């Protein structure tokens, strides 16, 4: 096994070298050095093993040993009809579409935006205004010990940049859609999407990131293997408000790793709503650093897994300053032989007095063979704080099922109603109503029909 992983690592390193050579001299020097440092870090770290606490229940061997390559051509052809089911263009002020990691201008829409707002691709801003992103890009995420973040930094080809200047409010959300195309016989490919959001002082913005696999009638769940390794960096300025939504609907053989780093400044409000519905291997990391007083941070998540899917959610809320509040609610629905991991870390630094943190995570197991490993991880170094956490894992309530059936609802309808109610607890916290409706429809469509 080690040999296979080792060989896999070499293929990733070869990809990094090829990519570096291809763009040689075409990027600002600060980015080139960040990429070199990231490459070095990736070589040193290698892929995480299950001996590491952060990856204890999640083996990345399937990713490590599959020789994913970056697509050879700049852009795979994709019919607009493949994008339509995932489009939110009626709702969004801008929709940037990326196919296999590359920007698809023809499929993207950017409406007239309030003055000063910048919504464009990273590739383009690196040419036109690199100074606008230099303070943030790769610096918010840092390198740390995260091999996959390093891999993304070394390899990302493009992504989205959103900048909202001070005191500007954007009412309609911005949608960034990353779509992967992979057919059963294709060489397994990978993409490394990158998103940077900078919300200036007292600004308001909502961002939706969608990660999806293209389906067709022949294989509605998708039959090709691919790997998405995304990194998102968010800066929420003083008194600014950012609502972030992530809708993950990768296809059945996809591997998906996404890491979001958030830095909040004084009196910032940040909400993350992470919905995970697809993929064979899924790992989400959300790391929020509350680096100013009076920040209000919400992390919510809902995941649905069936068959042999693995969904791992790791969150970290770092209360670095006093008087911040955080609310976290993650819920999972597991069927078949699905496995899930939830690890919710809350750090309260020594001077972060008056911290008020609450974490809840719940899982609904629909089959005997589904399982979850769940762990709250509270590291509290201040003494005047309020931190609570609760975890619950349960099965469908048979008495509730009987009650509904005794009133005339069919068994399947009763089960769906209860699952919906369970999920609704998370979905109803999403302020963006049309997205809630979309998410409910996806949930309904994907609910397992087993007894």
């Amino acid at each position, binding site marked *: 096994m080690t040999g296979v992983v080792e060989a896999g690592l070499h293929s990733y390193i070869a990809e990094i070298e090829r990519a570096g050579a291809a763009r040689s001299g075409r990027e600002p020097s600060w980015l080139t050095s960040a990429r070199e440092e990231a490459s070095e870090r990736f070589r040193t770290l290698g892929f995480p093993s299950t001996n590491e606490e952060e990856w204890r229940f999640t083996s990345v061997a399937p990713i490590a040993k599959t020789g994913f390559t970056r697509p050879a051509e700049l852009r795979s052809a994709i019919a607009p009809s493949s994008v339509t089911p995932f489009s939110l263009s009626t709702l969004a002020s801008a929709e940037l579409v990326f196919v296999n990691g590359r920007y698809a201008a023809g499929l993207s829409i950017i409406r007239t935006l309030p003055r000063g707002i910048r919504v464009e691709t990273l590739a383009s801003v690196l040419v036109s205004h690199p100074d606008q992103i230099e303070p943030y890009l790769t610096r918010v995420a840092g390198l740390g010990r995260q091999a996959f973040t390093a891999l993304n930094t070394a390899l990302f080809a493009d992504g989205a940049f959103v900048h909202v200047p001070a005191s500007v409010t954007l009412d309609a959300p911005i949608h960034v859609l990353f779509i992967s195309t992979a057919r059963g016989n294709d060489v397994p490919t990978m993409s490394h999407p990158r998103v940077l959001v900078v919300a200036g002082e007292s600004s308001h913005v909502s961002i939706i990131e969608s990660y999806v696999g293209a389906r067709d009638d022949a294989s509605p769940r998708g039959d090709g293997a691919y790997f998405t390794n995304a990194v998102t960096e968010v800066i929420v300025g003083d008194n600014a408000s950012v609502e972030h939504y992530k809708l993950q609907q990768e296809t059945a053989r996809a591997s998906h790793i996404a890491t979001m780093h958030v830095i909040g400044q004084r009196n910032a409000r940040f909400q993350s709503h992470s919905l995970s519905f697809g993929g064979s291997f899924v790992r989400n990391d959300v790391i929020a650093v509350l680096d100013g007083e009076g920040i209000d941070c919400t992390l919510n998540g809902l995941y649905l897994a069936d068959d042999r899917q693995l969904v791992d959610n790791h969150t970290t809320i770092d209360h670095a300053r006093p008087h911040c509040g955080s609310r976290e609610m993650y819920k999972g629905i597991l069927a078949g032989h699905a496995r899930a991991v939830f690890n919710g870390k809350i750090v309260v630094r020594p001077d972060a007095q008056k911290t008020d943190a609450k974490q809840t995570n719940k899982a609904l197991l629909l089959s005997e063979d589904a399982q979850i490993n769940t762990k709250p991880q509270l590291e509290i170094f201040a003494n005047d704080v309020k931190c609570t956490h609760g975890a619950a894992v349960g099965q469908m309530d048979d*008495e509730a099922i*009987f009650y509904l059936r005794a009133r005339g609802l069919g068994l399947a309808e009763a089960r769906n109603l209860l699952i919906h109610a369970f999920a609704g607890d998370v979905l109803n916290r999403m302020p963006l109503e049309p997205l809630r409706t979309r998410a409910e429809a996806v949930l309904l469509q994907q609910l397992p029909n087993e007894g």
Partner: protein
Amino acid sequence: MSSEPMLTITNLHVNGGGREILRGINLSIGAGEVHAIMGPNGSGKSTLARVLAGHPEYEVTQGQVLFEVGGVGQDLLAMDPESRAREGLFMAFQYPVEIPGVNNAYFLKAALNAVRKHQGKDELDAMEFMTLVRKRMQVLEIDESLLNRPVNEGFSGGEKKRNEIFQMAVLEPRLAILDETDSGLDIDALKIVAGGVNAMRAPTRAILVVTHYQRLLNYIVPDVVHVLTDGRIVRSGGKELALQLEEKGYGWLAPGEVDPAAKARQARVGEEARA
């Protein structure tokens, strides 16, 4: 009116939790009748109600239950719980289940339309549904805010029971089984609930009231009273039987003692009530 009784139970034996709970129940209820089943704790009253509604935790080992559908007695025990409900059987739960996240109005509309659809009636839209529901709420003095709360969640004991009778009033079953609907109700709530039940009395509807106490029967006056002890009906009679029990206590009928004439008498009383 059909000559077939609404419900005919013959020699019903039921196991639950590893022991025999019902040990040969015989009972016949005709349309238009109100029967009461009284019995001490553990006598099997609630088991009978739950078996009739189709609760999966019980095992029927012997006997038969016929439910009149379209003039023909159907094998009730072969029907799943939702089919029984759609054919017009309703059980008011002794312990109504809290269902967080499911809106009471949404649930009730789904239930009503499931029943209507099965019976070949048009489904009600939101407006028609609300009109019907408001009328029923008035009778039971139910506050409209209750509709927008999750089913039974955070309801007081009295609200839960009232919600059950409210559901019954909306669903308009042909056979209603009330499982200890009076327990936990104060006298004012009891009168309101009884009023709701009495408003449902109709020549085409049968009602089976399961209760521990005689008190409820002052307000819902039954045609026939049965006494259930240790899994068998040991005595059947008119409404005065309830008063005798109140006076003498269940000890008056020694546990396990089966009145040999009970079966014959209960059948006869049933016929008289139907006549």
